[in-house]
């Protein structure tokens, strides 16, 4: 009898833990939708697009990458992704939607952007600044880049994992500069 009770308790505990794990994983994931939007040429005009898309039910976060003509939408887990509604909202904003891609759920850890500061040696002029900015913006996790020639520093907002921070350093080094991570802090 004692053994039976122990076994039942163990099974119940095990089931409970599994449930917790499943719930934890589900609550921590966002669904990412990437739009390609044509006609997106100016930040001032993009404001209307941002406001339209943010009103859609389930949208938790929006990231507009004007230079790439892309909008990354992050829906909360379980939310319904209505491509027809997204298309309608983009058109209402005065732009042309070209492609809507739904990606696999992303971990919630990626949602919060970290401020990454790098020291960069070898910059000589604004052209170097421009090259570094362009290279860093191509990295998936990057939402914002500021390069300061005078301070020999770059500040990057990156919402990725540790390996993404290493990609930032590698991207700058590939251009012929010497980059070193100085600080990673919450944005």
């Amino acid at each position: 009898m004692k053994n039976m009770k122990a076994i039942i308790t163990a099974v119940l505990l095990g089931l409970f833990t599994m449930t917790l794990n499943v719930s934890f994983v589900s609550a921590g994931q966002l669904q990412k939708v990437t739009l390609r939007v044509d006609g997106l040429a100016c930040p001032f005009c993009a404001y209307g697009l941002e406001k339209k898309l943010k009103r859609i039910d389930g949208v938790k976060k929006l990231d507009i990458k004007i230079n790439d003509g892309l909008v990354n939408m992050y829906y909360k887990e379980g939310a319904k992704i209505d491509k027809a509604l997204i298309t309608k909202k983009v058109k209402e904003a005065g732009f042309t939607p070209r492609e809507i891609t739904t990606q696999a759920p992303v971990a919630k850890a990626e949602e919060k952007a970290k401020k990454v500061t790098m020291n960069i040696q070898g910059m000589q002029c604004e052209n170097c600044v421009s090259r570094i900015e362009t290279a860093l913006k191509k990295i998936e996790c990057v939402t914002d880049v500021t390069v300061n020639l005078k301070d020999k520093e770059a500040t990057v907002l990156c919402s990725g994992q540790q390996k993404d921070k290493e990609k930032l350093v590698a991207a700058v080094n590939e251009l012929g500069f010497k980059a070193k991570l100085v600080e990673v802090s919450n944005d």
Partner: protein
Amino acid sequence: MFHFKFSPFIYTLVAIFSFGGFSLASAHEPLFGLGPHTVGQYAWAIESNFERGEHGWLNDYELTYGITPDFAVTAAMPYVFSRDGRNAGFGDVLLRGKYRFLRRDVLNAANAFAFHWGIKLPTGSRAQLRGSGTTDYFLGLSFGHESRKNYAFADVRYQVNGSVGNIARGNVANFDVAYGIRPRQLEYRQPDLVLLIEVLGDVTGRNSFSGVEERNTGGYTLSIAPGFLFSYRNMMFKGGVKLAILDKLNGVQPRPGTEILFGVDVHMPPFK
């Protein structure tokens, strides 16, 4: 020595309201001309510009609403400052519409054509030199190319001026071509600067008094206008100076002066 057939007051009054009076600047568009940009459906924008022209200084307020993604309407009203401070007050209301009938969006760029129309109502006091006392109309056509680095605009418009008493003001034809450049193409949540240069032409018909054309009215002017558009998210600050570089005015008239414009344009969140 010059002989004026009519009181210089009449010429001044006519001159003040023969030029300008239609505020046109909005968003990424020429400062002194027309552009095809619209605000988006259910979206709205407010604008306030300080302008100095031949009439002196005025502060123009505008409210724009997007009925469809390609159709926007604007109501504008200037507050006219007087030199002596006694006659300051609101001037003539302008209602205008814009329909973007052709648009081609590609990656990072857009090309568009739009029709424009407007009506200026005689709501300002003519006696206090804040209004023309006439209902005037205009029609226009604009083209705009917008990309991450370059802007190009061109527009033409024709303004039909009404009559006040026995004075019929000459109609005005305008054109504007503009080029703009964005020196640094930063991302969405970063400041954005566009530098503009415009070339503008105005051809004004002669005024007439009791059906007789006035010698010292009308002519044409060619101007150049450098300017800037500086924005951050939904707020834009802009400014420019319009300088006459060539003019051929009929008879004896004061030379065109320098026009100045600076203001702010705010895009508000759409209603839905």
